[in-house]
Protein backbone atom coordinates (compact mmCIF):
# COMPACT_ATOMS: atom_id res chain seq x y z
CA UNK A 1 0.00 0.00 0.00
CA UNK A 2 1.48 3.36 -1.03
CA UNK A 3 2.32 5.77 1.75
CA UNK A 4 0.45 9.05 1.71
CA UNK A 5 2.62 12.06 1.05
CA UNK A 6 0.59 14.34 3.35
CA UNK A 7 -1.30 13.32 6.47
CA UNK A 8 -3.56 15.41 8.71
CA UNK A 9 -2.61 14.84 12.38
CA UNK A 10 -4.92 14.96 15.36
CA UNK A 11 -3.48 18.30 16.47
CA UNK A 12 -4.63 19.84 13.17
CA UNK A 13 -1.21 20.11 11.56
CA UNK A 14 -0.39 18.45 8.24
CA UNK A 15 2.61 16.15 8.20
CA UNK A 16 4.81 16.33 5.08
CA UNK A 17 6.21 12.89 4.21
CA UNK A 18 8.17 13.91 1.13
CA UNK A 19 11.74 12.70 0.77
CA UNK A 20 14.56 14.91 -0.54
CA UNK A 21 13.60 14.25 -4.16
CA UNK A 22 9.96 15.18 -3.47
CA UNK A 23 10.95 18.34 -1.63
CA UNK A 24 13.28 19.23 -4.50
CA UNK A 25 10.41 18.98 -6.97
CA UNK A 26 8.17 21.07 -4.74
CA UNK A 27 10.91 23.69 -4.27
CA UNK A 28 11.29 24.05 -8.04
CA UNK A 29 7.53 24.30 -8.56
CA UNK A 30 7.07 26.96 -5.87
CA UNK A 31 9.98 28.98 -7.27
CA UNK A 32 8.35 28.92 -10.72
CA UNK A 33 5.09 30.30 -9.31
CA UNK A 34 6.92 33.15 -7.53
CA UNK A 35 8.84 33.94 -10.74
CA UNK A 36 5.70 33.68 -12.88
CA UNK A 37 3.87 36.14 -10.66
CA UNK A 38 6.74 38.66 -10.65
CA UNK A 39 8.04 38.42 -14.22
CA UNK A 40 5.64 39.49 -17.01
CA UNK A 41 7.83 37.60 -19.52
CA UNK A 42 7.56 34.29 -17.63
CA UNK A 43 5.69 31.56 -19.54
CA UNK A 44 3.24 31.18 -16.61
CA UNK A 45 2.50 34.88 -16.18
CA UNK A 46 -0.56 34.94 -18.46
CA UNK A 47 -2.10 31.82 -16.93
CA UNK A 48 -1.67 33.40 -13.49
CA UNK A 49 -3.67 36.42 -14.62
CA UNK A 50 -6.80 35.18 -16.41
CA UNK A 51 -9.79 37.54 -16.86
CA UNK A 52 -12.20 37.79 -13.94
CA UNK A 53 -15.07 39.32 -15.90
CA UNK A 54 -14.54 38.39 -19.58
CA UNK A 55 -17.40 40.68 -20.70
CA UNK A 56 -15.37 43.72 -19.59
CA UNK A 57 -12.35 45.01 -21.50
CA UNK A 58 -10.51 45.55 -18.24
CA UNK A 59 -11.03 43.94 -14.87
CA UNK A 60 -11.41 45.93 -11.69
CA UNK A 61 -7.81 46.86 -10.76
CA UNK A 62 -8.50 46.18 -7.06
CA UNK A 63 -9.58 42.61 -7.85
CA UNK A 64 -6.53 41.91 -10.01
CA UNK A 65 -4.26 43.43 -7.37
CA UNK A 66 -5.89 41.27 -4.69
CA UNK A 67 -5.32 38.16 -6.81
CA UNK A 68 -1.65 38.98 -7.48
CA UNK A 69 -1.06 39.72 -3.83
CA UNK A 70 -2.76 36.54 -2.57
CA UNK A 71 -1.09 34.29 -5.14
CA UNK A 72 2.33 35.76 -4.35
CA UNK A 73 1.70 35.49 -0.58
CA UNK A 74 0.74 31.82 -0.89
CA UNK A 75 3.79 31.02 -3.02
CA UNK A 76 6.15 32.92 -0.71
CA UNK A 77 4.69 31.23 2.38
CA UNK A 78 5.08 27.87 0.64
CA UNK A 79 8.74 28.65 -0.14
CA UNK A 80 9.38 29.73 3.46
CA UNK A 81 7.97 26.48 4.84
CA UNK A 82 9.71 24.13 2.39
CA UNK A 83 11.80 22.42 5.05
CA UNK A 84 8.99 22.01 7.62
CA UNK A 85 7.88 18.54 8.55
CA UNK A 86 4.59 19.78 10.00
CA UNK A 87 2.50 22.52 8.40
CA UNK A 88 -0.22 24.59 10.03
CA UNK A 89 -3.60 24.60 8.30
CA UNK A 90 -2.85 27.94 6.57
CA UNK A 91 0.59 26.79 5.45
CA UNK A 92 -0.84 23.56 4.06
CA UNK A 93 -3.49 25.58 2.21
CA UNK A 94 -0.74 27.79 0.75
CA UNK A 95 1.03 24.62 -0.46
CA UNK A 96 -2.16 23.26 -2.02
CA UNK A 97 -3.03 26.55 -3.75
CA UNK A 98 0.51 27.00 -5.07
CA UNK A 99 0.76 23.42 -6.33
CA UNK A 100 -2.62 23.72 -8.04
CA UNK A 101 -1.68 27.05 -9.62
CA UNK A 102 1.51 25.38 -10.88
CA UNK A 103 -0.41 22.42 -12.28
CA UNK A 104 -2.84 24.62 -14.21
CA UNK A 105 -0.07 26.92 -15.40
CA UNK A 106 1.91 23.93 -16.68
CA UNK A 107 -1.16 22.74 -18.59
CA UNK A 108 -2.07 26.15 -20.02
CA UNK A 109 1.53 26.99 -21.01
CA UNK A 110 1.67 23.70 -22.96
CA UNK A 111 -1.72 24.15 -24.61
CA UNK A 112 -3.35 21.31 -22.66
CA UNK A 113 -6.90 22.60 -22.60
CA UNK A 114 -8.81 19.37 -23.33
CA UNK A 115 -8.72 15.66 -22.50
CA UNK A 116 -7.56 14.92 -26.07
CA UNK A 117 -4.61 17.31 -25.74
CA UNK A 118 -3.71 15.73 -22.41
CA UNK A 119 -3.73 12.23 -23.89
CA UNK A 120 -1.44 13.26 -26.73
CA UNK A 121 1.01 15.22 -24.54
CA UNK A 122 4.69 14.19 -24.53
CA UNK A 123 5.60 11.56 -21.94
CA UNK A 124 7.95 13.84 -20.02
CA UNK A 125 5.24 16.47 -19.62
CA UNK A 126 2.69 13.82 -18.61
CA UNK A 127 5.09 12.60 -15.90
CA UNK A 128 5.40 16.14 -14.60
CA UNK A 129 1.62 16.54 -14.52
CA UNK A 130 1.08 13.15 -12.83
CA UNK A 131 3.58 13.96 -10.07
CA UNK A 132 1.83 17.26 -9.33
CA UNK A 133 -1.56 15.52 -9.41
CA UNK A 134 -0.33 12.91 -6.91
CA UNK A 135 0.93 15.61 -4.53
CA UNK A 136 -2.36 17.46 -4.85
CA UNK A 137 -4.51 14.36 -4.46
CA UNK A 138 -2.92 13.51 -1.12
CA UNK A 139 -2.82 17.09 0.12
CA UNK A 140 -6.46 17.78 -0.82
CA UNK A 141 -7.43 14.73 1.23
CA UNK A 142 -6.27 16.64 4.33
CA UNK A 143 -8.98 19.32 3.86
Amino acid at each position, binding site marked *: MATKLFVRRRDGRVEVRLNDVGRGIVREVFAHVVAGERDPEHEWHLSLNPPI*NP*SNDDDDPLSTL*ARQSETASNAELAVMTLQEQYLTDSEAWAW*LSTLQVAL*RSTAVANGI*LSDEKLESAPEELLDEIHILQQFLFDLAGCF
Partner: protein
Amino acid sequence: MPTLKKLRNATAENDLEQRVESDVSVDTERPWNVIVWNDPVTPMTVVVAVFKRVFGYSNNKCTHLMLTVHHEGRAIVWSGQRERAEAYCVKLQVAGLQSSVERDA
Protein backbone atom coordinates in the same frame (compact mmCIF):
# COMPACT_ATOMS: atom_id res chain seq x y z
CA MET B 1 -62.73 69.74 -7.40
CA PRO B 2 -59.17 70.82 -6.61
CA THR B 3 -58.75 68.29 -3.88
CA LEU B 4 -59.69 65.40 -6.13
CA LYS B 5 -57.41 66.75 -8.91
CA LYS B 6 -54.53 66.97 -6.47
CA LEU B 7 -55.25 63.47 -5.33
CA ARG B 8 -55.30 62.22 -8.95
CA ASN B 9 -51.97 63.95 -9.68
CA ALA B 10 -50.48 62.57 -6.58
CA THR B 11 -51.66 59.12 -7.50
CA ALA B 12 -50.24 59.46 -11.04
CA GLU B 13 -46.89 60.59 -9.63
CA ASN B 14 -46.92 57.71 -7.22
CA ASP B 15 -47.61 55.31 -10.06
CA LEU B 16 -44.72 56.74 -12.04
CA GLU B 17 -42.40 56.51 -9.04
CA GLN B 18 -43.51 52.97 -8.41
CA ARG B 19 -42.88 52.03 -12.04
CA VAL B 20 -39.42 53.61 -11.93
CA GLU B 21 -38.66 51.90 -8.64
CA SER B 22 -39.96 48.65 -10.04
CA ASP B 23 -37.74 48.90 -13.13
CA VAL B 24 -34.70 49.75 -11.04
CA SER B 25 -35.31 46.93 -8.61
CA VAL B 26 -35.70 44.42 -11.46
CA ASP B 27 -32.41 45.62 -12.91
CA THR B 28 -30.44 45.34 -9.71
CA GLU B 29 -31.96 42.00 -8.80
CA ARG B 30 -30.27 40.28 -11.73
CA PRO B 31 -27.48 38.51 -9.89
CA TRP B 32 -23.88 37.97 -10.89
CA ASN B 33 -22.84 34.36 -11.23
CA VAL B 34 -19.49 32.88 -10.32
CA ILE B 35 -18.64 30.21 -12.90
CA VAL B 36 -16.09 27.45 -12.50
CA TRP B 37 -14.85 25.88 -15.74
CA ASN B 38 -13.67 22.34 -16.32
CA ASP B 39 -10.05 21.66 -17.11
CA PRO B 40 -8.34 18.38 -17.97
CA VAL B 41 -5.71 18.29 -15.21
CA THR B 42 -7.21 19.39 -11.88
CA PRO B 43 -7.92 16.44 -9.54
CA MET B 44 -11.57 16.18 -8.43
CA THR B 45 -10.55 16.11 -4.76
CA VAL B 46 -8.88 19.50 -5.19
CA VAL B 47 -12.04 21.04 -6.65
CA VAL B 48 -14.10 19.74 -3.71
CA ALA B 49 -11.52 20.96 -1.17
CA VAL B 50 -11.44 24.44 -2.73
CA PHE B 51 -15.26 24.74 -2.77
CA LYS B 52 -15.39 23.71 0.90
CA ARG B 53 -12.70 26.19 1.86
CA VAL B 54 -13.93 29.16 -0.17
CA PHE B 55 -17.70 28.83 0.28
CA GLY B 56 -18.06 26.61 3.36
CA TYR B 57 -20.54 24.39 1.53
CA SER B 58 -21.31 20.85 2.70
CA ASN B 59 -19.34 17.94 1.33
CA ASN B 60 -22.38 16.77 -0.67
CA LYS B 61 -22.95 20.16 -2.26
CA CYS B 62 -19.27 20.52 -3.15
CA THR B 63 -19.21 17.06 -4.71
CA HIS B 64 -22.39 17.81 -6.68
CA LEU B 65 -20.93 21.09 -8.00
CA MET B 66 -17.65 19.39 -8.87
CA LEU B 67 -19.50 16.71 -10.85
CA THR B 68 -21.51 19.38 -12.67
CA VAL B 69 -18.26 21.08 -13.68
CA HIS B 70 -16.83 17.74 -14.78
CA HIS B 71 -19.83 16.60 -16.84
CA GLU B 72 -21.19 19.90 -18.17
CA GLY B 73 -17.96 21.81 -18.56
CA ARG B 74 -18.96 24.54 -16.12
CA ALA B 75 -21.10 25.21 -13.06
CA ILE B 76 -22.55 28.24 -11.34
CA VAL B 77 -21.10 27.96 -7.86
CA TRP B 78 -22.41 31.18 -6.35
CA SER B 79 -24.83 33.99 -7.29
CA GLY B 80 -25.36 37.42 -5.80
CA GLN B 81 -23.87 40.90 -5.65
CA ARG B 82 -21.19 41.79 -8.16
CA GLU B 83 -18.54 42.77 -5.62
CA ARG B 84 -18.90 39.52 -3.70
CA ALA B 85 -18.98 37.51 -6.92
CA GLU B 86 -15.69 39.06 -8.03
CA ALA B 87 -14.16 38.48 -4.59
CA TYR B 88 -15.14 34.79 -4.71
CA CYS B 89 -13.85 34.51 -8.28
CA VAL B 90 -10.49 35.91 -7.16
CA LYS B 91 -10.32 33.39 -4.30
CA LEU B 92 -11.02 30.53 -6.71
CA GLN B 93 -8.37 31.76 -9.14
CA VAL B 94 -5.85 32.16 -6.32
CA ALA B 95 -6.56 28.51 -5.45
CA GLY B 96 -5.83 27.59 -9.06
CA LEU B 97 -9.33 26.93 -10.43
CA GLN B 98 -10.47 28.41 -13.73
CA SER B 99 -13.29 30.77 -12.89
CA SER B 100 -15.01 33.93 -14.07
CA VAL B 101 -18.04 36.09 -13.32
CA GLU B 102 -20.99 36.85 -15.59
CA ARG B 103 -24.32 38.54 -15.17
CA ASP B 104 -27.30 36.22 -14.92
CA ALA B 105 -29.12 36.01 -18.25
